[in-house]
């Protein structure tokens, strides 16, 4: 016999079950990726008005189609939303349905997933990804369609794409384009102007890694929670970029200029660079300039520490700068921006420009419409909105777009110097014979995804290996990765 208590419980659970079943029945209808699934925020102004006449003409041949788009999440939430909104505008204006998915590319599974989707014959039509990180791997896996026609047309309309794009996006003897330059990115180095002033240090003193480290030591004062050096070597995009930048500044690299032969550890320059990092992160001499937790493998607080005003010098994407401006953080006004640091092998800063590019996946069901959407997004209000939201992070990819609206060059003090960086002639040569940026290589891409160079520094700092041992192990891993990408090393 039921007690009233148990009866009520069972009634409750029965009711809950019933409601759940009802919810299931109602909800299962919406389980698929229906057309409305990606509509995040309704566009508020006339979409067709923004479509250039020539685009509207071209779009006439596409009506009632469904296009699926994969976007890389940018480090600024509103910019992601703007991208989705722009796609929806385009869909409305052309009478098509655009389904947008955003993906976090830092988890390292993007290439595997896209390759699997291409193989299964059910891949998105269009995507945009980091040119330097993913395009060569995707191209090598046969996952991309050539897009030379679109790039040629866009360069005719908007001027040449910045030099970095040609290096990262063209392949084969004919140098066919496999990515459509979408927007440019610049990595930034940030220092606290006010701290430098207090110590009487001129910004011009921040030239080389050695200079910066000495300055960071001077800025550090643990008692008042000031940590001079916020650049991490941890297993993240930031960490890998920082370690690679030091290696490059010393004239070392993972692979040779062709991107097929592993040269890591070959010359004394690798050891010199690694020794520099071992000293910086592992010796007690420099420990006072490192914020606690800088070695945490997930970037919990390195950037938060900058925003909280605890760090003197750091390196990051411009998202950090944009965030400080967006929240009226006092750090914004005290930020000194500089392009980067140099080392013994070069007097120029290496590898600070990058870009995002549209790719049309092999097996795309709507390649024509996909290309049309790409053409729409690279220019005009879709781009300008994103640039305005993400101050300094997202920048035009084509030379003439910079002058199409005054905001691109004057919207923030950082813009002009970023434009200058993007226009600098490439490649940059080192005294060791290497040229940067290097030829894109699936091997290097895979190495960048797996962070063996960060592990190497970690092994040394935690005293699990000597410098020589760590370099040897790291080289062994890199060789294995390259061989798996189809580049025999023996």
């Amino acid at each position, binding site marked *: 016999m039921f007690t009233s208590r148990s009866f009520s419980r069972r009634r409750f659970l029965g009711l809950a079950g019933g409601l759940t079943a009802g919810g299931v029945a109602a909800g299962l209808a919406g*389980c698929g990726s229906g057309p409305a699934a990606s509509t995040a925020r309704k566009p508020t102004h006339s979409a067709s008005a923004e479509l250039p006449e020539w685009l509207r003409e071209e779009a006439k041949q596409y009506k009632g189609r469904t296009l699926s788009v994969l976007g890389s999440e940018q480090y600024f939430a509103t910019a992601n939303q703007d991208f989705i909104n722009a796609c929806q505008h385009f869909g409305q204006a052309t009478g098509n349905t655009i389904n947008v998915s955003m993906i976090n590319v830092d988890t390292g599974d993007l290439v595997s997933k896209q390759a699997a989707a291409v193989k*299964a014959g059910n891949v998105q039509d269009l995507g945009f990804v980091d040119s330097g990180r993913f395009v060569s791997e995707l191209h090598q896996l046969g996952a991309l369609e050539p897009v030379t026609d679109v790039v040629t047309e866009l360069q005719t309309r908007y001027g040449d794409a910045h030099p970095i794009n040609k290096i990262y996006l063209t392949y084969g003897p004919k140098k066919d384009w496999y990515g459509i330059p979408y927007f440019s990115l610049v990595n930034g180095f940030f220092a606290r102007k006010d701290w430098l002033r207090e110590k009487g240090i001129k910004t011009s003193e921040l030239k080389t890694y050695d200079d910066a480290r000495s300055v960071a030591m001077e800025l550090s004062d643990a008692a008042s929670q000031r940590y001079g050096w916020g650049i991490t070597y941890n297993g993240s995009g930031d960490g890998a970029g920082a370690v690679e930048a030091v290696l490059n500044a010393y004239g070392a690299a993972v692979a040779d200029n062709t991107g097929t032969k592993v040269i890591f550890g070959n010359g004394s320059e690798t050891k010199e660079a690694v020794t520099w990092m071992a000293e910086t992160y592992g010796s007690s001499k420099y420990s006072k300039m490192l914020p606690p937790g800088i070695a945490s493998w997930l970037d919990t607080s390195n950037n938060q520490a900058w925003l909280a005003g605890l760090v003197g010098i750091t390196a990051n994407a411009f998202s950090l700068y944009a965030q400080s401006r967006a929240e009226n953080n006092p750090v914004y006004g005290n930020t000194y921006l500089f392009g980067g640091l140099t080392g013994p092998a070069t007097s120029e800063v290496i590898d600070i420009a990058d870009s995002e590019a549209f790719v049309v996946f092999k097996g795309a069901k709507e390649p024509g419409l996909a290309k049309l959407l790409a053409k729409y997004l690279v220019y005009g209000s879709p781009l300008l909105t994103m640039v305005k939201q993400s101050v300094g992070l997202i920048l035009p990819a084509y030379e003439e777009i910079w002058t199409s609206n005054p905001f691109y060059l004057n919207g923030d003090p950082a813009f002009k110097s970023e434009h200058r960086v993007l226009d600098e002639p490439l490649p940059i040569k080192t005294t060791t014979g290497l040229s940067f940026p290097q030829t894109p290589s699936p091997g290097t891409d895979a190495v960048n995804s797996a962070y063996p160079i960060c*592990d190497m520094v970690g092994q040394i700092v935690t005293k699990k290996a000597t410098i020589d041992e760590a370099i040897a192990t790291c080289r062994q891993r890199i060789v294995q990765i390259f061989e798996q990408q189809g580049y025999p090393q023996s």
Partner: protein
Amino acid sequence: MSSVATPRGRDAALAGRARWRRFGQRALGPDWRLAALFVGPALVVIAVVVVYPFLDSIYLSFTQRHVGNELVFVGLRNYTALWNDSFFRNAVKNSIVFTVYSEVFKITVGMVAALLLHNLRRGRSLLTGLVLLPWIIPTVVTALDWRSLVDPLFGSLNDVLTFTRLGPLLFHLHFIDQWPATWLGDATLAMPVVVLVNIWKGIPFFTIVFLAGLKAIPQDEYEAASVDGANAWDRFRNVTLPGLKYPLIIGPLLSTIWTFNTFDIVWLMTQGGPANSTMPFVVYAYEKAIEELEFGPGAAVALTMLPITAALVFVLARYIRRSDQDSSPGAFDRFFSRWGRWLALAGAVALVIALLLFDAGLLWKMAVGLGVILAVCVGYGRFLHERLVRPAGVRARRSDLLGRLPMYLALAVLVFFVLAPMYWLLVTAFKTDLQEELRNSILWPRPWTLVQFHNLTAQNPFWTWYRNTLIVAAASTVLGVGLSAFSGYAIARLRFRGAQGLMGGLLLIYIMPSALLFIPLYQIFSALHLINSLWSLIVAYPTFTIPFASWLLMGYFRSIPAELEESAMVDGASRFAAFSRIVLPLARPALLAVALFTLTNAWNEFLFAYVFITNNHLMTLPVGMQSMIVGDILPWGQIMAASILVSVPVVVLYGYAQRFLVEGLTVGAIKG
């Protein structure tokens, strides 16, 4: 066709069919057709979601990708290469360290918690509900909460430990090498922190399993022991422990298999760092296969470790089968009952030696930690057990109230351990971003604000994620409970060849870490157009709960007298009618227990949702919350606000329904 059209032809056809039926019954057992109907759907789902990807992984492990997409057969090269791979050796070591320490503490603290809660006269439901909290909140919430808590700059742990002087004390006692500690940034501390979080999350499972076990021990056994003059320790040793034998074997075995294959908590907390100090083999295999695109070597890493999980699954399956009263002991059972104890002892000694060789420093610290817990328990063990396992009907005296104080203290410590991270989550959700960054009033929001909740719902499709999670959790629960009920019933009642081995076969699902299945699964679901569809999750989720749920239901069904069904069938009911109208209503507690288990799993699941869903508006809560982390900027306040909203319904449900979980486990898993 014409041959069967005549009466003679029809008779011949019928006779032929009867012959085949008899042959089928002789070969496959009298109930094989019904069994196929009952077990078939579960097997089909398992074949698609686990068996095919598993076989694909085996194939991949013998290949390497040489040029572009071309796979080349390389024999055992991927396996032999692992011998010289120091990272692989390190990953194996880490997996063992992570699993052993996690399990030892989870079992010990789970047992203490169960004993404490078992004889609590007032507020047991509430306290049990609180202790269950870590288990029922999503792993993403757990990982992010702890990451925030132990952050040396913005977390509160260092402040609390400094204020209480415990931090400096731990430093002076050489438990930590520096104070303030950098926790996840310190290669020597990261593993203990990850283990601690795993313990925190895993204690409730053991608490609930042991609570169910304690409930199943007849009180008269304690009374008889007391009459014979047994003291508290004797009663614990001779009544409680033997009474908990079944949960003490099944619980740790299941938990060990799950822990050994753990991916998400490590991935979300450290991604194996710093400097590979927390890299278990599953994450290493994932990194190789997925990030480095070395599918073959990655699969080889996972498969090399397969014998360990296979051995555990084998023992588990044998033990489950041995507990089946209908089966007679085989050669293995005789061997195991004779040598099992010695084997276990030898294994334990080998493990201790291995742990000593791996990291002697960590071993002594863990041993001291465990020793303190055990010493406290044994120290007033006599007292503790006297009170906790009191013979029924003995009323508490007034002096008891004072005497029970240590027990309440122990409970308070337990509840503090469980709730402290939840408190951090709560206060962070009610702070402004600026307050978090400036670190003013760390443990108390000043002022309290709802701005994070507002921003959470205004800037993210949070309620859409909520709706998706409800749909997936409910649908996969209905599917999981249905498939498990059919399978469990078939194994418990129907006579067909292979029934004995089927349970073991289902358990094989646990052999392969799910992190390694998802690329083949991605291809399958992609071909079926299920990517970016909640259906992919609805189909995948029940698969991993079917073995545990089928086993639990099988035990419960066996506890229901078969005569009830036989009477119904004599009265003309079909087997299916007897099952649905008699057995299922009687098994309601077990069905509810299974439903809660499946629901929790679906509510919390991260990896598959993360892989299969990229559309922001089809995400479930764990993945949606993870997507709020944009690059390296973590909106802590919004994440914590989301955590609260995610946890509330599950907490309410468990507060109400946990009694059925215990009841279902008691009969299904412990007695059954």
